[in-house]
């Protein structure tokens, strides 16, 4: 595992602006913000913080800074990309509820729209939604995760209340009462019962008791219990399971396209979308392309091997630490999956071309540093000898 030095915290409370109202502390899903009773300051324990941004979105004094998807960067993004679209409809989507915008047409009935994907819509404040309307947006559609599926527990419910209150206020100002709409969507396992061999692997590995092995007819899933981590999908020995929107074939189709875009050394990264928050319009390295997954549990050995077969010089899996995993302990199991395939690659002299890094977005640049170290290693062993 790559060890990464501590860097700048991603969330900061600016004590000069803080009014000690403690709304942040009451909303934080992780009890990371508490009041220090000795000096009456609000204290952020960055080690507990999961960087959801709910505190920053709720702070009435704008005293909380976050380096990802803050108010200014989201507005700047909107101003920059809006002229590229004919539409004045904005679709704001939690990336946990869909990996791309392909479902938006079906869910909201819009085909042309300005897309904005964020890690949790709970970081979008009422004030920011109004500022977006002031930028010329006429309609905002928000796609959040189901409430009990929200990776940050409070982001989706909070956004529901915000939308309700804002629509009420906007209708009083003469706007249509559906100026802001919100829908919820969660991605779940798909089962092909014809392929199931009733081995019980999914029953054993699922952290949520979603699969049940029937005495007749193989497996059945309680989809309300499924939280879409994809671990069962990645381990099913018969390919009987797949994950909505992160289908096996979809990832297989994406791999060669991404690898063809890169310059050597070509580093393909499979990353948990909660371990890394890539900047909006960030610079893209010519050597690195990433496939975002709902959890490192969705990393499949066959995709790692496909990447190497398609010309990647190195493959890296970026996961959350076991303590930070938004799914129950799945990242630790993913590490085992990666270790197993690495062991097999070692047998044929390609072990070093698979890397595993455990990072968190709570410090700036951890993932970038892990990828940089891996890339340097790949450069020393060279790009020849395979592909």
């Amino acid at each position, binding site marked *: 595992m790559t060890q990464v030095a501590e860097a700048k915290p991603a969330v900061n409370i600016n004590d000069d602006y803080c009014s000690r109202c403690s709304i942040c502390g009451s909303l934080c899903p992780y009890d990371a913000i508490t009041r220090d009773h000795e000096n009456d300051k609000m204290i952020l324990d960055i080690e507990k913080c999961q960087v959801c941004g709910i505190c920053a979105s709720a702070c009435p004094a704008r005293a909380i800074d976050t380096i990802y998807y803050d108010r200014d960067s989201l507005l700047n993004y909107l101003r920059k990309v809006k002229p590229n679209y004919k539409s004045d409809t904005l679709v704001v989507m939690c990336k946990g509820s869909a990996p791309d915008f392909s479902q938006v047409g079906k869910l909201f009935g819009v085909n042309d729209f300005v897309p904005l994907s964020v890690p949790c819509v709970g970081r979008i404040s009422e004030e920011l939604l109004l500022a977006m309307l002031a930028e010329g947006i006429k309609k905002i559609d928000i796609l959040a995760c189901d409430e009990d599926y929200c990776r940050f527990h409070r982001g989706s419910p909070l956004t529901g209340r915000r939308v309700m209150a804002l629509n009420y206020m906007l209708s009083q100002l003469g706007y249509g009462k559906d100026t802001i709409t919100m829908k919820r969507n969660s991605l779940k396992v798909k089962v092909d019962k014809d392929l199931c061999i009733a081995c019980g692997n999914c029953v054993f590995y699922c952290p949520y008791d979603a699969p049940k092995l029937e005495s007749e007819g193989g497996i059945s899933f309680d989809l309300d219990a499924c939280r879409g981590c994809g671990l069962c999908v990645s381990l099913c020995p018969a390919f009987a399971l797949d994950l909505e929107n992160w289908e096996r074939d979809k990832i297989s189709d994406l791999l060669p396209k991404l690898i063809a875009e890169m310059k050597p050394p070509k580093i393909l990264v499979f990353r948990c979308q909660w371990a890394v928050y890539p900047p909006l319009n960030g610079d893209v390295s010519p050597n690195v392309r990433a496939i975002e997954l709902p959890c490192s549990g969705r990393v499949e050995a066959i995709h790692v091997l496909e990447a190497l077969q398609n010309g990647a010089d190195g493959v890296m899996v970026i996961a959350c630490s076991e303590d930070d995993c938004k799914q129950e302990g799945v990242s630790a199991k993913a590490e085992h999956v990666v270790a197993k395939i690495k062991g097999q690659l070692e047998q*044929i002299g*390609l072990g070093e071309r698979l890397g595993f890094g455990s990072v968190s977005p709570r410090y700036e640049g951890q993932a970038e540093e892990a990828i940089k170290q891996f890339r340097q290693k790949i450069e020393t062993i060279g790009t020849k000898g*395979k592909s």
Partner: protein
Amino acid sequence: MIVTVLKPLDEILESISPYKKILIAGCDGCTQPPRGMREVKTLKQLLELAGKLKNKKFEFKLTSVVKQCDTVLTKSTIKPYVEDIDAVLSLACGAGPQTVAEVFPDLPVIPAQNSHFVGIDDREGGTMFDSCSSCGDCVLALTGAVCPITRCAKGLLNGACGGAREGKCELDPERDCAWELIYKRLERLGQLDRLKEFRPPRNYQKKAWKVAP
């Protein structure tokens, strides 16, 4: 189930090197995890990557048999490929390649697995261990369902031998003493009097090599 371990990839590569068109045949049967289509595809990818480094090019076809030790299932699954392959690489236990050989006498078949034992899959403990020797004369009713033939290193019928230390076998300190397990189990069941029964030497002629269903 039958516990198998994938052979070293070098050995597999060496065994298949005389052939070009190879059918990799998995088995969805009793191994845990099953050596089904995922294992088949993963092995194909690994062999292609390894082959490329050694300038060896194979043409793989992939399939998985519901139960490779079943002549009917193996015949129907593999038959459509037979005309177009040079050999079969089997991911089943030792019974699988032999079944393929029975059904297709002219087709070379290569094992990709080493078969170790009929075992218990302790999922939570993360291990699988030897538990049945298929001896043909089951004594589990007398021993609290712990097999002394298999799990006692000496295969004693009238244990314990006296060599165990802190519940572990004197021959392998990692291994539980089967007779201590038997004693504890019978104690829980209130059947310790079973230990007073003398068990005469076993009749190994009872072990069958062939059975009609």
